[in-house]
């Protein structure tokens, strides 16, 4: 086990800046998830930590030692790849023991480690099979086993569940969480799936275009996002953003009115005093934070477009105006007709306010 420290890490491909100065501290035994949309640089950052990509500038330290120019096999890491990357010409046993054999470890020790990992991952009956004879989930377990036997300081996972079907993904997610609990190792995990990030992480790092947008515990990001990007990325279905305008401002408090329904107003205490009446802002409301009509601080009327009934709850896709469409989680909605109207309550306490640049002001 070791900590990982990234100091002003940058990556440039030709004239293109991929990672634009990342500072990050990952504690020993912590489970950190890099999350962000495709192309945000999360996999590149992980590959830089692994030593599979050169670091253009900045410093990477694992367990206190600078690793910028150290060979991947000597960084004390093990990596699980998206496509599993099992050697197709080797059996499960050979795949798991390959790195150890290559490092010159004694046969008995390899055998012991491989058998231990096989026991933990319940791979016993599969040990003499080749990867092509395994299912996706089994291959993933072998890939994890191959990482475990190396007894690494840091586990690196690069979107390990994205090739699995939905059911297996949930199962493997739980398995990985259990494994981390058992091994207590430092884990860096890359995914574009915010549900995976929320359920697995001790700490989430949200990336966008090579920049860290916010770092924090899953619920801290959910409860307290810094900007519209993080607010929209964390939480499923994603947060609704409604265009609004400052009506009154003074003594740290503002009143905002929805642009599409100006009679709907909400009052907020602000983090900043840099807003004036007339300024455009975004009102962020999560689908699950709408309230029954008459129980919030203000009511708004919606034209129902489509409703998805999941049984325990329904997601109602509705139009606030011709340009604005939102999702409302509604526990008892039964109408599905396009002509339905729905009145929902807004709560200022459960809503967020962002300025024009997307920065959180409340």
């Amino acid at each position: 086990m070791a900590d990982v420290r990234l100091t002003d890490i940058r990556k440039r491909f030709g004239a293109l800046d991929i990672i634009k100065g990342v500072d990050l501290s990952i504690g020993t035994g912590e489970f950190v998830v890099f999350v962000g949309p495709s192309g945000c640089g999360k996999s590149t950052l992980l590959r830089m930590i692994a030593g599979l990509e050169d670091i253009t500038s900045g410093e990477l330290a694992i367990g206190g030692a600078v690793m910028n120019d150290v060979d991947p096999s000597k960084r004390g890491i093990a990596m699980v790849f998206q496509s599993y990357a099992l050697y197709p010409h080797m059996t499960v046993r050979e795949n798991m023991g390959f790195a150890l054999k290559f490092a010159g470890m004694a046969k008995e020790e390899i055998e012991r480690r491989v058998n231990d990992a096989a026991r933990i991952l319940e791979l016993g009956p599969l040990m003499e099979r080749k990867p092509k004879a395994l299912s996706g989930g089994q291959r993933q377990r072998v890939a994890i086993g191959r990482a475990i036997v190396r007894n690494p300081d840091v586990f690196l996972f690069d979107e390990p569940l994205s090739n699995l079907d939905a059911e297996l993904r949930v199962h493997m997610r739980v398995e990985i969480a259990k494994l981390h609990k058992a091994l207590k190792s430092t884990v860096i995990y890359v995914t574009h799936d915010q549900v995976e990030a929320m359920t697995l992480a001790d700490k989430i790092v949200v990336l966008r275009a090579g920049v860290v947008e916010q770092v924090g515990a899953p619920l801290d990001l959910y409860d307290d996002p810094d900007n519209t990007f993080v607010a929209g990325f964390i939480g499923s279905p994603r947060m609704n953003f409604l265009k609004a305008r400052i009506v009154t401002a003074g003594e740290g408090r503002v009143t905002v009115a929805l642009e599409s329904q100006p009679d709907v107003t909400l009052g907020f205490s602000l983090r900043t005093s840099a807003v004036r009446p007339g300024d455009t802002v975004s009102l962020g409301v999560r689908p699950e934070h709408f309230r029954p009509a008459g129980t919030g601080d203000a009511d708004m009327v919606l034209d129902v477009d489509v409703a998805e009934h999941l049984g325990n709850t329904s997601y109602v896709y509705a139009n606030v105006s011709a340009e604005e469409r939102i999702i409302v989680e509604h526990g008892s909605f039964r109408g599905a007709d396009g002509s339905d109207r729905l009145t929902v309550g807004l709560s200022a306490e459960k809503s967020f306010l962002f300025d024009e640049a997307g920065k959180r002001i409340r």
Partner: protein
Amino acid sequence: MNLSRLSGTALQYAFLGLAAFLSIFPFFWMVISATNTSIDIIGGKTTFGDAFLANVGKFFTEVDVPLIFWNSAKVAVLATVLTIAVSSLAGYGFEMFKSKARDRIYSLVLLTLMVPFGALMIPLFMMMAKTGLINTHIAIMLPTVASAFIIFYFRQSTKAFPTELRDAAKVDGLKEWQIFLYIYVPVMRSTYAAAFVIVFMTNWNNYLWPLIVLQSNETKTITLVVSSLASAYYPDYGVVMIGTILATLPTLFVFFVMQRQFVQGMLGSVK
């Protein structure tokens, strides 16, 4: 089935039948001729005769069979192994290592495919003469070792080689040459098998270049010897056909042994 569909099917079968006949007839003719005397063959006899053993006997008397087989096998196997080793390394390198110069160099390599062998023959002969390699088997093998087509074939096949395997191997501590040897080669074995069949056949059947550089009977390969039998003043075609059958057998054997791998390799070898 209506008439037009029936006639369409009949036409298809007629075309396929003709194609099959054209493919198979030379083999049939070869085998039939090996059992007949030269006079029967020239007379157009297309049935089995009784001169097979006599033809075999004559062939083994006139030709040092073990020597020409040894020469052909040595040249074909060594050239094939060297060609595949060099060309697969080049194909791997061209695909795996990104650089600005890569595609320019690769284009130059492909450009050599457009140059006919006839244009290279004389400069190659002069090179071999200057280096004292005329009448040696090395002279036959050297020009074939870096084959633009096989480099192209390996590069195209390498596109299907998962780059994550290379990454995993790096994390496991392998150097680039070890990744090539322990991961790439076994994973791409079908590609290697297909390349082996193609290159072996080309080398075994190689005629023009050996004809130019091999001048003594001790170094000649089977294709040259059979050809010289056919161009004698009174060629004994029955004996020539025995030689042709013997010259065909190794390529048939290699193809049938590696048929499954060959087809897999041509379709893309990474499974």
